[in-house]
């Protein structure tokens, strides 16, 4: 159930510094993180369902950890409760992904002439 009070996020591995939102979150909403190593935190901004929220502060160039493994690197300082996605995390393999549109994922580097 979606309530304005609390919302759920899922942490897969106890080493993870991000959790996946099971429902959309709004700025200031309290988040109950279930799964491995449950914690509570507050959403620092609105975040869509199934997107990731930072569980701790993650400085620039530090690894983003999900499933207990490095899924990318922070491209700027991230604070706890912030949305983690293409704007502040990049892949160590697929360099194109951080050029995609933040919300739709659509490519912006292809010319339609």
């Amino acid at each position, binding site marked *: 159930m979606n309530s304005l009070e609390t919302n759920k996020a899922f942490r897969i591995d106890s080493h993870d510094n991000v959790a996946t939102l099971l429902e959309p979150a709004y700025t200031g909403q309290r988040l109950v993180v279930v799964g491995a190593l449950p914690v509570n935190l507050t959403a620092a901004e609105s975040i869509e369902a199934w997107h990731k929220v930072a569980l701790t502060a993650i400085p620039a160039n530090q690894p983003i950890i999900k499933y207990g493994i490095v899924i990318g690197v922070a491209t700027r300082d991230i604070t706890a409760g912030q949305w983690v996605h293409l704007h502040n995390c*990049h*892949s160590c393999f697929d360099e194109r992904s951080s050029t995609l549109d933040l919300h739709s994922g*659509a490519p912006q580097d292809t010319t339609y002439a």
Partner: protein
Amino acid sequence: MHKQLTSLHGTGYLRPDGRKGVRNLVLVVYTVQCASHVAHAIADHEPDTHVIGFPGCYDNQYAIRLLLALARHPNVGACLCVGLGCEYTQPQRLAEKIAESGRPAEWFFIQDTGGTANSIAKGKRLIAQMRERLRSVPQVPLAWADMVIGCECGGSDATSGLAGNPTVGHFFDALVDAGGTAIFEEIVEAIGLGDQLLKRAATPQARQEIDAAYGKAVAYCQAVRQYSVSPGNFAGGLTTIEEKSMGAIAKSGSRPIQGVIKVGQAPPHPGLWLLNSVPDEHFMQFGYTNPNDTEGLMDLIAAGSQVVLFVTGRGSVIGSPIAPLVKITGNSQTYHKMEQDMDFDASRVLRGETTLEEQASELSRLIGDVAAGEPSKPERLGHREYFIMYKHQDTPSLEQGCRQ
């Protein structure tokens, strides 16, 4: 960590090579698209008779190996090969190899038999004769150690990596610990996880195989300039290929990887195996590694999987011939919208109603029932999709012949 698996309660059909089937099927194999109507008409209204075939007229080593692996699958008791009469692929040679495995096998050309109606009548007569011989196949107790189970995912969403695939991963750990064989594939969806896979190599040989397969997959992605991740994945909350890969690889569980098998090969001993379906870079370039979900399932079945698992978040309505398919979703909406197609609801763990261990143990009981003969939902609905394509995994080295 995980719960021990409850013993299997069914019996298996003992084949001459020692493998045990969970079904006792007749298989009709056509050797060119021109023979496909006749093949399907032969199997029509014959509930124990499944059909596969190769559409091309020009033969292909990969496809022959795949057809033979499927025809000699433990769930298959007898086989009829049907050709038109002018194609490269030879039904007689297929039938001879299948007969060498101790299975009744027959073949004919439609051109020699006098057309559609005569061929259908002849085919039905032949499968009726072979079915009689299937009755005497010994039925023996079935254990998890006899089971080979393959898993792939498709139509994935964020729940696949959180609930669906991890549930299978926990089940695979328990299956391997019980002496069984687990197979996972989609190495192009393991990009970014080379170190994770290498760390899990059971032997130096396995490490070498994983390294080569992973290197080939990376080369493939670089050559086609594409990683197996799309705008829809990003919009759905995935940020990197590594993240998507880990969601897919979660289905492999945590046990050591025994080695890498190619399409049409069976794992030489129990444990967890990686199936590599990436094509060789050939004169037609790489080709497609996994053009659709059905192709991947056929690869897992060709490796000898008696039951195959399919994890889908968005939902899917495919099934498979030869080996029953069990469909698992981690998305509760999908489960409720498509309950007649979905065998297992893995979404409960996300609501905190159960644990992955408990869910994996429930899944194992469902798989046990299907192995004992209970039809899975796709089986009940009559789904028997198959897809066999041109691909190369046998390319001779560049030093040989005129490719120099």
